[in-house]
Structures are given as C-alpha cells and as structure tokens.
C-alpha cells in the first residue's frame, strides 16, 4: 500500500530520517501531521546508559508494523499516511530509535493514529533492547509478553498492567 511505509534500518547503514518521514506523510489533502521520535537517553532506572543495542525478528516486525498501520487506518476512519521505522543494531546516546509519522486531514486524527502506532510498536513488535552501562555491564530490558496465556495471567494479577515501559 502506498500510504504506509514500514522499515527496519540497520544503524551501521543509516540513521532514521525524520525529514523523509515528514515528506512521505505530506499530502495536499492533509492539514495535520503528528510525529513521535524515540531517542536513546543517557539514563534508565538510576543507571548511566552509554548506548543500546536493538535485536529484531525482522520479517515478523515488518508484518506487525503493517498490521498496526491497517489498524490505525480503521481506527481513525479518515485518509491516513503513516510511516513506521525502527532502528536495529548498536545505537549511541541521542541516536533515533524509532520514528512514527502520521498525516491526516485534521490534527485529532493525526495524534490518534500516531499514538496508536507507537504504543502498538512498543507492546507488540518483536524488538528487544539491550542497555549498556557506564560500568561496562549490560542488560536486556524487561519487556511486554507476546504470549497470550501470560498476558491473561498478568491481567488477572495486576488488574490492568501499568505499561510503564
């Protein structure tokens, strides 16, 4: 579909490009563009972070991005152009980890599509983050289970799993 662009970008090859995303979702019909840019920050849970590495199961990640795009289109009920790109490999502080851009006729639709897409990418796409710390240690981030039975169990345990990540 021409209105949806999904990509996984190996950091060694290129950085994510926000200008390219904005150009893609621009359209004479559209008066609103919302973007979310996720960047690598220098701390997490009280530890100094020096960089992160992203591991992805790429074919399923791209399919998941496309499914998210279709869901966003159905949800906003308006013409939509959507860009979802995620970085892969070793990233430095300040590098772009994820870029989501949504273009629609009006701002409300753009904000809703962008929010839906970034939350779904974080909770549903097969992507894993490993943080590297200033002391030389590193650790995989705690994540969100994709296992149906586990999700059901969490829902019962915590009545609404806070999703702080």
């Amino acid at each position, binding site marked *: 579909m021409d209105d949806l662009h999904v990509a996984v970008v190996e950091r060694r090859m290129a950085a994510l490009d926000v200008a390219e995303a904005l150009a893609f979702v621009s359209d004479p019909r559209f008066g609103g563009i919302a973007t979310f840019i996720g960047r690598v920050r220098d701390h997490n849970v009280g530890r100094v972070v020096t960089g992160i590495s992203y591991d992805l199961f790429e074919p399923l990640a791209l399919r998941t991005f496309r499914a998210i795009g279709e869901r966003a289109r159905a949800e906003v009920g308006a013409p939509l152009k959507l860009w979802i790109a995620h970085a892969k490999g070793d990233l430095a502080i300040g590098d772009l980890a994820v870029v989501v851009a949504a273009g629609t006729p009006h701002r409300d639709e753009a904000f809703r599509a962008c929010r839906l897409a970034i939350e779904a990418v974080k909770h549903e796409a097969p992507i894993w983050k490993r943080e590297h710390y200033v002391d030389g240690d590193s650790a995989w981030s*705690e994540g969100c289970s994709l296992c149906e039975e586990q999700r059901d169990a969490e829902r019962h345990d915590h009545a609404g799993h806070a999703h702080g990540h």
Partner: protein
Amino acid sequence: MKTRIALYGALREADASGHVELDVPAGSSIAELRELLAAHLAEHAPAIPAGLVRCSAFASAEEILHNHRSVPEGVELAVLPPVSGG
C-alpha cells in the same frame, strides 16, 4: 521431527549460534514445544531464568503461534521473549 528455533533478545544468551534444534514428536502443540524448550534450556543453558520460556511467544516469520496451535512441519520457528522496542 527436527525443529529449528531461532533465539532472540535475552534468549540469545542460551546458545551462541543463535538457534537450537529440538526433536519434536509429529503433531505436537506449541504448548508441548514450550515444555521441550524449557527442559532443553534447563539442561544446556542453566543461566537462563526458568520462567523466561513461560512468558515467551513462539512465532513463524508470518505470525505468533499460540499454545493450542500445532508445530508446523519443516518451518523454522522463533522464540520471542517479552518485547521492549521503541
């Protein structure tokens, strides 16, 4: 049948090759594959937390395969620990 399972995220630590190969009886469900993988890792990669396979999902390149699904023949699968993208 032999089933090859690619490892991702924290489960990569289980085998430097990035995958494991399990002997899976024909007609097994994903729930049964989960038990086989948990037993395999308990023996060969004791550093992996025992609960990690329980909260991981299995998938082909096309879709997540939930517990009631059959293990597809001749397809490489992936085991996906809890995700942390974005």
